């Protein structure tokens, strides 16, 4: 099943104070962590930086060693470039299969625009998308 359809996202807790995001960015740089996509969800007092990186396992260890609060989360990714309406089709298929999209974010990469999704059951979600003929972007492709 590990054909790369399930992508490891790093979620990082960022205090909402001046300079905190810059600090996290500098730690990522210092640790040589290459980001492919990121998204910042904000609340009044804190933010959650979600990042798709090269070698998430290694990056996770490096960040932890730096005292950064980080968590690994399984996400899946669909292309929203080559099949217009793919996102709608995916959401529709998920609805029928009883899968919830907890959050998602679009990212326009070098090659194509993609949509990352955090769902309650990623394994089942991959199956549902494959059955519906929706192409998944794999970790090798991001």
């Amino acid at each position, binding site marked *: 099943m590990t054909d790369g359809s399930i992508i490891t996202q790093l*979620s990082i*807790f960022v205090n909402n104070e001046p300079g905190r995001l810059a600090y996290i960015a500098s730690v990522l740089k210092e640790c040589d962590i290459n980001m492919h996509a990121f998204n910042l*969800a904000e609340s*009044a007092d*804190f933010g*959650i930086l979600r990042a798709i990186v090269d070698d998430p396992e290694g990056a996770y260890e490096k960040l932890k060693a730096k005292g950064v609060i980080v*968590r690994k989360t399984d996400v899946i990714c669909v292309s929203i470039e080559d099949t217009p309406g793919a996102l709608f089709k995916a959401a529709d298929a998920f609805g029928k299969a009883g899968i919830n999209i*907890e959050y998602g974010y679009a990212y326009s990469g070098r090659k194509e625009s993609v949509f990352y999704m955090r769902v309650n059951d990623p394994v089942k979600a991959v199956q549902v998308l494959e059955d519906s003929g929706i192409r998944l972007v794999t970790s090798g492709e991001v």
Partner: protein
Amino acid sequence: MFWNTKIECMPSEELRSLQYRELKSLVNNLYSFNKFYHDRMKAENVHPDDIACLADISKLPFMYKQDLRDNYPTNMFTASNSEVVRYHVSSGTTGKPTLVGYTRNDLGYWTEALARSLTSVGIGSDDTMQVSYGYGLFTGGLGLHYGAEKVGATVLPAGTGSTERQIELIKDLGVTAIACTPSYLVHIGDVAKKMGIDIRRDTKLRKAVLGAEPWSDNMRKHIEETMGVRAYDIYGTSEMAGPMFTECEERNGIHMAGDIVYCEIIDPDSGEVLEEGQKGELVVTMLKKEAMPMIRYRIKDITSIDNEECPCGRTSPRISRISGRSDDMLIIRGINVFPSQIEYTLLRIPQLAGHYMIIVTREGALDRMVIQVEIKEEAFSDKIEDMNKLRAYVEAELKKYLNIAAEVELKAPGELPRFESKAKRVIDKRVF
């Protein structure tokens, strides 16, 4: 104008001998009938016979808020359930609240004290008084309510909140006097202005009895200049009964009715009684209380005492404006909050790491309390709604235990300051 001229203007010598007689019988009673105080006197090796003059009170052991907590709910009561006619509840220093009970006579003396106080500031049967202290478990609302009724004022039991409605009532009913916290009166002034109402010109409000939180002569000046309302300080805690004593028209200290309370000022560290005029911690002995006696109770407010007869004619000792606390209690929107209560609440929440900071500010006229908490690493979720839920849960728990709204900010582990010796977790930026 006096409510009870005989007592209020009693010659000092006579008052002191009255106080001595009251103290003597109180101590005899407690030694004979109250297990808590009997044991405490035994432990300190004091006998009622040791009390041979008023100054001998210093031989008696102190009582503390902790004693109320340890004896929660009614173990310290000296009246039976059939004699107790009311309870009030305030927040304790940790989980357990502080319960106070009253016999009919206790309520009578509380009301009597307020009747004297209100009369001394010129509030009487021609007045309409709005009581904008909280009604309910808090002593302020009901206390002032019955005091104002006693002097024959028309009482409007407004309670707290719905400020615009309160202002409309002040205007429509010709309210002449109000009892509330000083910051709430400033807030009323601010809101009235926004409503296009000038308190001075459009209402009959002329007097305010303000207390339950620290304030200053600067704030008094501000209130008087912006609203045209003459402001008087009121003092009293739930352990005494509730708000009880005020300044008179002279406004040179709060008259502490000598037949009801005996006041001492002590050095908070050594416990030694200080000379008249010296600043220290107020210790009160309630001379008339039945349900729950208070002997040398360490109230923890910092003030000084003046025994000189007041130009108003009253002979009762006066205490100066409370200038601080000898403990870390905070007063937020009139509600007493102990950092230990906050800590107690936070430590019971498994997702939190135990480090916290309390930041108090004043926005407009109202206090704002922000509590920063560190979450445990495992409590961190990539889903913002999980984090928002956690924050809301912490806020609800604090609200439940403190009885006051606090805003919570979630912080990453390690973000808040660490303290090597005495923790300084409270940042109070308010200017009174």
